[in-house]
Each structure stands twice: as C-alpha cells, then as structure tokens.
C-alpha cells in the first residue's frame, strides 16, 4: 500500500491573449505614478469609486488605494506593506486593501518623509507611492472606506486637504423603487452629482486653474465606448463553450477602472475581437467545458491565475461574477458625453454592494439565468465584509429560485493567509459532484 499525493490532471485555463496588453498598461501606469513628483504633478489619493477621470482631465496624478494593493498582491509583494501596517497598529482583520495601502503610506513617510537618510530599496514597491497632495474620499457601500481615508490622513500628519463625497446606500424601500428607477434613485443621483460639481471646485482650488471640462467630456466619451465594448465581449460568453472567463474580466478591471483613458478603448476593441474569433472557432476558456459557474465575491488578487487554472482542471468555466459584471462603468448608457457628471454619479451609486438585497439578488439571479450557470461558487472575503454580508441570502436565492447548488470558501482580497486550499477543493468538488449526480438522475 502506498500513500502518496496524487495531483490533479494538468490542465490550464485558456486565457485571452489580449489581456496581456493589460499587464503592460498597468506597468506603464504605475511607472508614471512613481515619477509623478519628479515631473511636478499634484498627486491625489482616493479609494473606492472611479473618480479618476475627473483627476486625469485636470492633469493630477491619481492613486487608487485598492488598485495599488491589488497590484502588490498580484506580484506577491504585499507582505512588507502588511507587516509595516501591523507594526503601526492596524488590525489584521482591517480590510487588507486598506492595511496594505496604509503600510505603503507609512513606508513612504519613513523613507521619503520624516526619516530622512534611510536608504530605500528600489525593488521594494512598498515605499514608492508618491505622498498625496490631496485626498478625495468618495466611497459607496463601505464604512471602512472613509475610516481608511482618515487613517491615511493621520499617517501624513493631518496636513493633506480632504474632500468628502457622500454616496448614499440605495435602500430600495419606496414603492416605486427598482434598479435605475424610482424617486430615491433620482434624488440620490442629483445628490451625488451636486457633490461631484463641488469636488471639481475643490480640484480647481488645488490646481489654481479653471477646470478643463472639455477634457473630461472627451475622456468620458472614450470610457463609455470602452465600457460598451467590454460588455459586448462579456455578453458573448453566453456561448457554449464560453470564450472567456470571469478571470479574464478580473484582469481587465484595471483598464476600465483606473488606468489612463487613452489606450483603454483600443484595449477593449482588441479583447472583443479575440472573443468574437473564439466564438467563431468554438474555442473555450477551459479546455473541456463541463460545468458553468457564477463567481460571487471579490477577487483573491494573490491567486488570479492560480484560481483560473484550478477551475480549468475541474472543467469548470466561471462565466460571470458579481465583481466583474456588476461594476466598473457597467451602465455606459447613463453617461452623456456632453454632460457626463450625473451619469458618473449614477455609475458610482450602482457599485455591486450599494443596493438593498432585493435589487442586488435579482440582478445576480438575472446574470445566472443569462449565462446558464450550473452552480455558484462564493468567495467570502475575510476582510471585506461589505461584499460578504449578503452572501448567505444570495446562496439561498440561487438554491430556491434557480435550483442550483452553491459552494462557499473563505479567502481574502490581498491577504492570502486567510485562504486554505483544501477547503476550496472540498467545497467546490462537492458542488460539482452534486451537479453531476443531478445530471445522472435527469438522464
């Protein structure tokens, strides 16, 4: 008798080739950020909502906290920042995006600021973020978001000017409430739009120049088109086999969410063309598509490629997800390129966690039906409870309304110590076995 680990059959995800371009765009963008001070640019730190076009139009360098933390995690360079943040006193169960980013802020202060004389390691990205000249706090759904901005402000000695945009939760409680409709929707849209116009005044004060509205209009016209291309490519994944996966759309988040707008439209044109070609060729995102799954949950940024390959080995195409399909300028039709502010406010309002449960769940069920999924895999992120809170309700709805099994595993956005491989294996494999058993009975 031999006891030895027998590995899975080796299969790899058939990732979209075009997403490699995203890697280059991401690298170019962060190089630009690291040079910003040398080039005399003002730097704005922000978290959450994609206010970057407002900043890009005004030639202000923008630093999105989650994006930097995610980039570090994707490069497996998050450890130092997280350790520095813990040493500073931030709890391990604080949002790991925030903890990583705060670790970067603290490192920046030590090496660029008050600890003059320390020699930075050029290969260590922890300290390289340029310190903020302003902070804009514009976070939907996440109570930690504002506290994160406040902590950042403290790290920099409370000397950095802050502008606050309040993005209210959509309660959906009034009789006429629904997705993109009703009195509450119109009122909150106006409320956020007014604050965005005030935010522009704050930007004018910081730059000392009149705000270049025409540049914002041009950028938003491009974003609208890029979003349409992205959604069209996603829609094509209703095909069987699915030509691209949730993980391809995860890799494509940075281009739509926080990279410089020039280049983004072309990126999604290339992606769409490749997806179309795959549909014509009957080429799938996994070598042997046997199951189609929905992914509910935010991403484990340390494990994007690894998870993509894992699901490929299970012959499971993860065809859609809440994180990718219900966020990131997902309603381009709301953006009027000649007057985009209200449409931008509305896109900030419909971030996937900012809806009351009935609306959120109905949107998810709609995606599951559209993409004809056999099951739902749920990633409960330990330090992102905003995303995780409604997941039991979502699982119950999938079970009762769609009759599909669900499987939940715990992990995290950027702290991989919360992730346990065997727990994921057991749970997802059990769900796939349940799907298989049902198919056998049905046959």
């Amino acid at each position, binding site marked *: 008798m*031999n*006891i030895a680990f027998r590995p899975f059959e080796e299969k790899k995800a058939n990732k979209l080739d075009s997403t490699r371009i995203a890697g280059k765009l991401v690298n170019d963008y962060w190089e630009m950020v690291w040079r910003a001070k040398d080039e005399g640019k003002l730097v704005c730190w922000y978290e959450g909502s994609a206010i970057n076009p407002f900043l890009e139009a005004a030639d202000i360098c923008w630093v999105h906290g989650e994006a930097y933390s995610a980039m570090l995690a994707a490069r497996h360079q998050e450890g130092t920042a997280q350790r520095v943040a813990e040493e500073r006193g931030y709890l391990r169960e604080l949002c790991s995006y925030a903890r990583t980013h705060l670790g970067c802020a603290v490192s920046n202060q030590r090496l660029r600021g008050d600890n003059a004389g320390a020699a930075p390691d050029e290969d260590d990205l922890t300290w390289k973020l340029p310190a903020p000249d302003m902070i804009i706090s514009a976070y939907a759904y996440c109570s930690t978001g504002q506290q994160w901005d406040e902590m950042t402000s403290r790290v920099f000695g409370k000397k950095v000017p802050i502008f606050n945009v309040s993005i209210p939760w959509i309660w959906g409680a009034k009789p006429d409430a629904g997705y993109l409709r009703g009195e509450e929707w119109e009122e909150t849209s106006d409320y956020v739009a007014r604050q965005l116009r005030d935010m522009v005044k704050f930007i004018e004060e910081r730059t000392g120049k009149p705000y270049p509205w025409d540049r914002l209009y041009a950028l938003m016209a491009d974003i609208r088109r890029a979003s349409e291309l992205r959604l069209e490519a996603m829609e094509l994944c209703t095909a069987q086999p699915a030509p691209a996966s949730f993980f391809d759309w995860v890799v494509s988040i940075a281009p739509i969410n926080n990279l410089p707008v020039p280049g983004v439209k072309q990126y999604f044109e290339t992606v769409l063309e490749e997806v179309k070609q795959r549909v014509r060729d009957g080429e799938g995102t996994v070598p042997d598509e046997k199951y189609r799954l929905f992914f509910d949950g935010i991403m484990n940024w340390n494990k994007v490629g690894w998870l993509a390959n894992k699901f490929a080995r299970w012959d499971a195409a993860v065809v859609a997800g809440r994180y990718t399909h219900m966020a990131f300028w997902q309603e381009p039709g709301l953006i009027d390129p000649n007057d985009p502010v209200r449409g931008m406010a509305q896109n900030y309002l419909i971030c996937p966690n900012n809806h009351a449960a009935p609306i959120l769940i109905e949107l998810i069920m709609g995606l599951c039906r559209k993409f004809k999924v056999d099951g739902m895999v749920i990633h409960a992120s330990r330090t992102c409870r905003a995303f995780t809170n409604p997941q039991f309700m979502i699982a119950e709805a999938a079970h009762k309304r769609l009759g599909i*099994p669900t499987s939940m595993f715990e992990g995290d956005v950027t702290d991989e110590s919360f992730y346990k491989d065997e727990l994921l294996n057991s749970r997802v494999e059990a769900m796939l076995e349940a799907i298989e058993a049902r198919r056998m009975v049905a046959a």
Partner: protein
Amino acid sequence: MKQHVMGVDFGSTTAKTVILNLAGNIVAHSVAHMGAVSGNGVKHSMKEALDLAGLAQSDIGRTVSTGYGRRMLDEADRNYTEITCHARGAVAMVPDARLVIDIGGQDSKVISVDSNGLVAQFAMNDRCAAGTGKFLEVLARAMEIELEEMGAVALQAAQKLKISSMCATFAETEVISLLAEGHSKPDVLGAVHKAIATRTLGLVGRVGKKGPVVMTGGVARNPAAVHYIQEELQMPLVLPQSPQIAGALGAALIGLDDYRAENRHLLISDQEDMAHEEQMAADKACIPGCRGVPEFAVDPREKQPVAGKAKAHASTESHA
C-alpha cells in the same frame, strides 16, 4: 467478476473502511486512529476490514476514497468529497433522512438531501476547528478528562454557563478561567457542548431546517453533543448504529454503483436468467445439463472451477 467493493474515509483524526458485497450489505468495517502523514491509520483500517471479511485487496472490485486524504490512496480507483459520500452513506443508513449533521475530527458539516438522496445544499465550518471533534479533543485535554467520558459528565451539568469563543485555543483559556472561578467540571463541560450545538445550528440555518435529521461522525457517539444539538434544533436526531462509518459507507456505495454499471453484462438478475432459461426451453435449444447454472462468472478465489460451471461454459461456448 469480483464480489466485493470497498469505501475508505481517509479523515484527519480517524480512518474508516467499509467492505460491501455486491448486494450492498456490509461485510466488514473498521475504524482506526489516523496518522495523516504516515498513513498508518488508513493502512491499519483497510487491513483490519479485509481480515474481518477474510479477503485480500485483490478480491476488491472497486475502491473509492473520501475525506481529506482521498487523493493520497493508491488503492483508490476514484475519489469523492466527504459531502457526497456522507450524504450517500447517511441516507443509506436512514432512508428518509432530509438533513445530515456530520461532526468529524476536523470539520463539521450540514447537508440537506433531496427526495432522491442527492445533495441539495451544504454548509461547513469555514475556519479553524470551530465546532468539531478537534475542539472537544483540545478541551478534554485541558480539563484532564478522557474524550470518551466527556459526554456523560457534561450531561450532569446543573448550572448554565457560557463559552463564547469557538476558537479551540481561546475556549481553552475560557474553560480554565471558569474552573479557576470554582465552577464544576460538569457545568463547564455542559457549556463546551452547548457551544458546539450553537455553532451547528448556525450551519443548519444556512441550508434550511428540515427533518428527519440524521447525525453522523464520531461526535454522534457523544451523548451530550446529541442532547444539546437536539435542544437547540428542537428536533430529534436519528442516530445510526455506526455513525462514524457513514462516509466510508457512502464511498463504498458509490463504488458499488460504478462497479455494477461497468459489469452490467455479467450481473444477470434471477428474473432475466429465468426468462433466458424459459426462452431456451421454448426454443428447445438447450442441451441437457445446462439448466440451473445461475451465472457464467467464475469466482476468482476458486483455483479450480467447479465441474458444473466449467461444463456450463463449455456448453455455452459450444452452443455459441
């Protein structure tokens, strides 16, 4: 065709083996303490079950493994998760069960099964040893009591105490401080079991409460765990005779299905056999002496085929 199949539950704390005959009856089973790295427990469990059945591994037609070490067993032809296997085993033990509560060494799980006995939904402990056999094991050590005695002592609890932490390490601290405050062992142990029951009810809530409820896994042998879970659930628990072997039984049953399907051509039912016999008689195509031979397979344990069977084969072949 071989006459037996095997299911092995390669768990974290114990290894369980079940051997079935082709009619699905348990011929032998064994439970052994595990050494997860060496695999000694699983080797011991398999050998003991084979010895009890008077069989060798080569007599087994299909071996299916489950549990955390399911992919580590060379003898296994296939492996399935413990969710699928526990559901299958529990429903075989209690045919009308709709909910399975399984508390094993490393994890606790609640599985709802549909009217076909298939997994409808499941929930498991999502972190550490919260609410598992390991939790009890750690606290038994802290309280210097044998694991097997814990349940009986806990049932003597007179005062309701509360242990809030589900982390085994922190719960140990709470237990020690309760003892230091002068609380009795039975009262503290009652609180330990109540904590497990509360945790289990949380999992039940995630898949939906329905009955009959069957409890499997090693903790089902602990009367206090059963008592407190029933109290929280406000429903009776059905306890199989050997709750620990549910996963191994389920694995063996899946193996049996698989083996039967693969050898369907060799498994002729009495009804089919007699229909064939009657057809041959009607056709007057059968030569004398071939009547009454039930099957064509030769038992591999028989070194010399019995004359009748050999004759039957010869007759059939010549007839063919």
